[in-house]
């Protein structure tokens, strides 16, 4: 219980620091907040006064930060300068796309990574060599390069998948999300396969496995109950950390496939200097990242009671 409280306190500190930095950044922009609030207009003195009034730029910094934070906690991130729309409305629809993509990729990572890693761990020799080589290759190729390769080969070349866009209906969306999800998951699946292989190997050499074998238990039983169960702990940890990093990876993948998610909104907002959106997306990404990490820690404690001692 104290562990949970301590983690929650740490989480709150990280979020407060992050929100403060994210808000303070506005004032580090060359020219200050007026520079992007005015955009490309030069602005008459009346317009400037109106903007200062609207954004309360004459209040002290801390007062404005607290007001912004209070609004943000209630889900109000202000208005986008480019879209002339509530930022929270912009975020809502796009979060679904990103969440779907990350979830799809997670399924692929766990399925492929654990299966390949277990196979490589249990079958030294050719299967192991092939899987290890593939994993090294997948780890060296950057996500966006994998994405572009898949587009060129599977979408443009063979025509199996649509190139860009979100798709219609649930199945359509899934079909459209397949290439992005594979792109997002390959590197992490390779990493997970390596971890799984190493931890299966380690368990295979343990004394309790030796003992189980010498007692004449069936190999299938030894592998399932003695090797895989113990090997699963590091695998769960790494899976969790991987899911957190997928949030950052989705920024790149969404841009490769022109998906309308948080990541592509983020990049567009940076290019258009739409600061309210930038702040909101950063805050959402950091929050999600920190929360996923917390959940992973809790899961590990549940799996391995030794940790909470």
């Amino acid at each position, binding site marked *: 219980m104290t562990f949970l409280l301590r983690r929650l306190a740490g989480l709150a500190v990280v979020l407060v620091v992050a929100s403060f930095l994210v808000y303070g950044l506005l004032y580090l922009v060359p020219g200050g907040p007026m520079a992007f609030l005015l955009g490309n207009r030069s602005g008459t003195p009346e317009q400037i006064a109106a903007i200062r009034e609207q954004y309360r730029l004459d209040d002290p910094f801390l007062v404005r930060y607290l007001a912004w934070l209070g609004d943000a906690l209630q889900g109000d991130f202000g208005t986008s300068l480019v879209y002339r729309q509530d930022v929270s409305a912009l975020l809502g629809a796009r979060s679904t796309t990103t969440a779907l993509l990350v979830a799809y990729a997670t399924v692929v990572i766990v399925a492929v990574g654990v299966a390949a890693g277990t196979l490589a761990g249990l079958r030294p020799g050719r299967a192991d060599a092939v899987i290890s080589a593939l994993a090294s290759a997948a780890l060296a190729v950057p996500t966006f390069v994998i994405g572009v390769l898949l587009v*060129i080969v599977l979408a443009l070349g063979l025509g199996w998948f649509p190139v860009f866009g979100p798709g219609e209906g649930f199945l359509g969306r899934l079909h459209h999300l397949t290439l992005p999800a594979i792109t997002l998951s390959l590197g992490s699946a390779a990493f997970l396969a390596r971890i799984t292989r190493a931890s299966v190997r380690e368990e295979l050499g343990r004394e309790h496995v030796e003992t189980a074998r010498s007692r004449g238990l069936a190999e299938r039983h030894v592998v399932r109950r003695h090797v895989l169960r113990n090997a699963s702990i590091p695998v769960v940890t790494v899976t969790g950390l991987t899911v957190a990093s997928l949030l950052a990876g989705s920024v790149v993948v969404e841009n490769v496939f022109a998906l309308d998610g948080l990541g592509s909104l983020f990049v567009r907002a*940076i*290019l258009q200097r739409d600061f309210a959106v930038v702040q909101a997306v950063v805050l959402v990404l950091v929050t999600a990242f920190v929360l996923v990490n917390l959940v992973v820690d809790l899961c590990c404690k549940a799996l391995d009671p030794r940790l909470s001692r």
Partner: protein
Amino acid sequence: MTATDALKARRTLRLPRTAPALRRLGPLGVVAAALLAAVTLTTLLAPVLAPYDPDRPDLFNALAGASPEHLLGGDALGRDVLSRLMWGARTTLSGPLLIIFLSTTIGTTLAITAAWAGGKVDAVVSRLLDVLFAVPGIVFALVAVAVLGPGVPGVVLGLTIAYTPYVARVVRSAALRERQLPYIAAAWVQGRSAVGICVRHLLPNLRPLIIAQSVSALGFAVIDLAAISFLGLGVQPPTADWGLMVKSGLDSATRGQPLEALGAGLLIALVVAAVNVLGDRIGRQEGELR
């Protein structure tokens, strides 16, 4: 010639330092090192080697496929893809090198200060690192770009901040271990200053670890910078850069010319793989030394 003479001759023939180093790298390590050397030489000699001016558009060559004149065809503006690939390694490699240099310097300084001072200083530095770890690295770079505007300086700043905690964590734990060893106490008893001990004794002993850590981080830096350039937020057109070429190449590929994207993507992957192999080999040697 007696047997001892022959032995002497063989000894003098053997290259004194490079040969054992090469042997320790193993065959794959040598291939990786040779690949990196070739890429570096090619891009340094690009003004001489490149068949065309990388920035000169040629409408007759726009989106053209491979031909004897243009071995890898042309991009959307008809610029020669092969020439652009030769020039492109400059930004793709120099940016990550700068990021690794800065983050290693800052991270090592922070780590050694924290490990040496201990107590409150160590606690503050460790908490700061924890907060930095709580945010995914690429987000730092994107936020820095949002403030400073798209371009290399913002990305270098952001990725340096993102990479520093990784260096600091590794170096700090090693420095803490090293501090307990008798040679540090011996130097201290001799009346050496703290800074003198850190620079003269501690740092040289940590060097293999720091080098191994930097090389493996370099692969990630190449990927991150290229990815941000791909997003249009890093290196800016019309510079020939591999990350940017994958982006413009994706567009060309939908219009039937995939060579630009394939060439740039393949080169990035090869360079990252080579850096990873080297980092792996150097890290293993470092492990054997301990």
